Structure formats: C-alpha cells, structure tokens
C-alpha cells in the first residue's frame, strides 16, 4: 500500500469535495464543521460533551446523552425494546441487583440487594417473610396496628380426627375409645386460618358410627394456634345434644374452643338454665337415623 503524506489539501477548481480512494490515516485530530457520513465507524471511543446527543433514526427517534447530572435515553417511538437472553439491572459497582429478567424464567425485583418478589408460572411468588405491605405511614391506621404485611396465602386439606367415648356419661376428655377421620379443608391468609371438616353417617352402623358417644376432641388442625382462646359455634349437624354424665339439658349453646399453642379443639355446650351455669359435652344420639357433625373455626397462627 502506498502512503501519501500531506500537510494541506486544497480543492482544485470550483468543487469543494475531496475524494480519497484509499485509506486516509490522520495521526492527530479531525475537526468537522458539519457532519460525517460513513457506512461503518470503527474506533476506541466516541466522546460527546454534556447535553451533546447521539441521535438515531431518520427522525432522530432516540437520543442518548448526558445532561451533566443524569444519563438519558429518550425514545420517541411507541416502544423501546431491549432484546437479550437475560437482562440484569444493577448498581455501578456491579454487586447489587435491582432487577433480573431471565428468558423462559422469572423476573425478580430487589430492594437494597434483597429479593422481594419474583414471577412464577402461577403469578407472583414471594420469598418467605415477604409480601404486600399495606403500611400507609400515616396515623389513620390507629396505634394498635402491629403489622400490615400480608405475607402468605395457602389452601389445602387436613385430616380431621373426631375423638369420642362410647359411654355418653363419660366426663373425661383424654380417654377416647373411638376416633373417626374426615378430610377437612383450610385457607390461610397471612396468619389467619379458617379450617373446616364434616363427619357424615355418625348413626348406628353408619360409616362413621359414633352413636351414643360423648364427643371429646377434634384433633389435627393444620396449623398451631397462637394467642389465648378461639371459639366458634356448632352449625350444620344432626343428632347432637348436650350432656354431662347423666344430666341432659335440652337448652344449650353449642360451641368449639381452641386454646393457644394447640391443634386440639374441644367441643362443649353452655347450658341455658337461669342462675345455673353448666358446661356440657356434645353427645351423639343413640339412633340409626342419619346423623352428621360439622366443624369450622377461624383462628390465628404464628
């Protein structure tokens, strides 16, 4: 390749265009008063001062520049599309992720370097202990609010066991002779649990025969209770009456109670007799007619 060294180029004649058929090598600077046209540019750096822009598109549709304070990418099109197998947004040091986008996988969002939420095949997925925080930061929530973080939802089944004694006059609660299981269901929203179960065919020769039994406990709740005492009323049922030993009271309020740190529910009944308080057991009638018993309760867990 021949090299032509020149100090000054003056266009000849009336034209103002200089054409170099080969490669022009400039060892110092090039100053251009208007524009540079090229099919391809190769170099080590492109440097532009503050608020000087790289303009792309026939209509200068996207601008890339630095204001002196912040870095700007301004797209005038309807979409700004970035295509890559995976994308990670992170801090300048490269050690704190803001967001990660994985092809064919999750999108993860971070707060101060800790993952807070990610997408999954079912929707949003929160790491343990994370959730939706409803804290407003104001005083309108009242002084007694201990948490506004909704951190869990779950639904499923549990094996509910109904324990009873074959003697309706029995008065203990820890000596069951008969146990019947049923598949119950639960919903857990934050620390709030609702659990239910139903036993059908309690009658004589029924599939869950507990005829003429004292009902003692329901065991197997899906979560351990927290707090002190939870209670609920007896609802859907047939053939249940209130009894303590040989005392049968026909007016009673039937309920369930659950103490703290427990998965055992005690069924009981408060007799309705003026000036004569008394607690009765749920008791199953001695009958071959269809009988059933349903339990439900809402309580808190840790």
């Amino acid at each position: 390749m021949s090299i032509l060294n020149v100090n000054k180029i003056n266009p000849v004649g009336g034209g103002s265009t200089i054409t170099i058929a080969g490669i022009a090598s400039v060892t110092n600077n090039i100053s251009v008063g208007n524009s540079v046209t090229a099919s391809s540019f190769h170099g080590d750096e492109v440097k532009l001062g503050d608020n000087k822009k790289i303009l792309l598109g026939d209509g200068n549709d996207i601008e890339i520049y630095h204001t002196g304070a912040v870095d700007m990418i301004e797209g005038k099109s309807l979409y700004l599309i970035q295509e890559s197998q995976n994308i990670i947004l992170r801090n300048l040091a490269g050690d704190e992720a803001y967001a990660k986008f994985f092809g064919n996988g999750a999108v993860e969002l971070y707060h101060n370097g800790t993952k807070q939420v990610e997408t999954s095949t079912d929707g949003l997925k929160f790491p343990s202990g994370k959730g939706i925080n409803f804290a407003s930061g104001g005083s309108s929530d009242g002084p007694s609010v201990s948490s506004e973080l909704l951190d869990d939802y779950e639904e499923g089944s549990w094996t509910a066991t109904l324990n009873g004694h074959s003697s309706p006059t029995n008065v203990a609660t820890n000596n069951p002779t008969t146990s019947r299981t049923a598949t119950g269901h639960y919903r857990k929203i934050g620390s709030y649990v609702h659990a239910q179960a139903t036993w059908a065919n309690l009658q004589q020769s029924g599939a869950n025969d507990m005829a003429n039994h004292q009902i003692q406990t329901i065991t197997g709740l899906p979560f351990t209770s927290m707090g002190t005492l939870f209670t609920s009323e007896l609802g859907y049922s047939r053939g249940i009456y209130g009894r303590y030993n040989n005392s049968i009271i026909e007016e009673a309020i039937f309920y369930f109670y659950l103490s703290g740190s427990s998965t055992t529910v005690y069924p009981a009944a408060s007799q309705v007799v003026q000036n004569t308080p008394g607690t009765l057991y749920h008791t199953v009638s001695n009958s071959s007619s269809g009988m059933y018993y349903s339990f439900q309760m809402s309580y808190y867990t840790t």
Partner: protein
Amino acid sequence: MALSESIEYDKIEIVGQYKHVQVRKAMVIKKDGKELTRSFERFVLDPGTLDASDNLVDNPLTKEPDGTTDIADEVKAVCTAVWTTTIKDAWKSKLIADKSS
C-alpha cells in the same frame, strides 16, 4: 407424554414454645418432568398426649394423622431433635392446665 406424581415435604416448621412440628406435604403432578399442579395437605405433630393418669405419652411418630401414611424420616428427625425433656415437661404442664380450663 408421561405423567408422574410425587410427594414432597416442602415445609417442616418448628412453631412456638412447645416446638410443634408443622408439616406441609405437597403432592406434585408433572408432565414430562414439568410441574403441572401442586396441592397441599397439612398436619402438625406435638410431643405427646396425656394418659388417664396425666402422664405424658410420647408421640410415637409412626403414622400421619390419616392413620395410614408412615411419618417420613426427615420429619421424625426434626421432631426428635427439638422435643427435649424440657419441652416435653412444659407441654405436659400445658395439657394439664388446658384440661382445667
């Protein structure tokens, strides 16, 4: 196309002062190795029960509450690790106190 069904004990939690072992059992159904559904069944294990004389009978850790499924070894290991004598004594006292409430 191959469907498979498996059980995972995907949460084994130790809860509260009496160290209840709270277990979530997930039934996972996959098609060609890709998970289709996951359903949950829960149960909680405690250190034991009272007999008629108010003695604590240790939880035998044999069957899940359904009465048929053996308790998984990984669950047993957690139970035996956390149910110390101190915990059992406290649990027994709680059960006795609950009886009188």
